[in-house]
């Protein structure tokens, strides 16, 4: 799964926004935040699929903490974008 396809979807970008806000969330918390803060009312199954795409792209990782499965944002794959199209210093000042 490439990172470009993973972040092409607005629901998946909202998931990443929420995991940046607080890392280590359960599926329930992610769904609650999407519904209440973004008006995204997808089913839990649909969100699970989105999480699978993000995990396959390396943008999130999951770990069992206690009896729950939690999700963390992982930004490393996004570095490849900045490295592929670096922003020149002089460009920034334009």
């Amino acid at each position, binding site marked *: 799964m490439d990172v470009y396809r993973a972040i092409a979807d607005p629901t998946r970008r909202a998931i990443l926004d929420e995991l940046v806000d607080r890392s280590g969330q*359960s599926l*329930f918390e992610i769904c609650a935040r999407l519904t*209440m803060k973004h008006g995204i009312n997808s089913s839990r199954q649909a969100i699970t699929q989105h999480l699978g795409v993000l995990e396959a792209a390396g943008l999130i990782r999951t770990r069992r903490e206690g*009896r729950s499965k939690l999700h963390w944002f992982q930004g490393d794959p996004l570095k490849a974008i900045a490295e592929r199209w670096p922003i020149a210093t002089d460009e920034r000042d334009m």
Partner: protein
Amino acid sequence: MRIHLAGVFVDDQQKALRFYTETLGFQLKHNIPLGEYAWITVVSPEDPEGTEFLLEPDAHPAVRPFVQALVEDGIPSTSFAVDDVQAEYERLQAKGVQFVQPPTDLGPVITAILDDTCGNLIQIQEEKPQP
């Protein structure tokens, strides 16, 4: 029709009774021995004649896999209303309660989720005044 009873399945009724009364602060309403188990309900001190909350044994074989699957995805077994989630969070943390979700502002409500030590996740929820 009114709702007079709600509840959760618990892995140990006496441990649950201690947690729901001594830690959370509910009051014992009924404790009727029924052989191996008991009919145990608690009520809120703010509404002692209100809805009773049943601490039901999880002895049925379907219960544990069901509750475990909920907990794996972080889904609370039930939700309690509080006036101030942040204050409850601090009060309960000081008593050693584990929270799996700290107070989180979700727009119309603030929620937090705790572990009841008897198998369940429990949400506490504060409704914000509507503008």
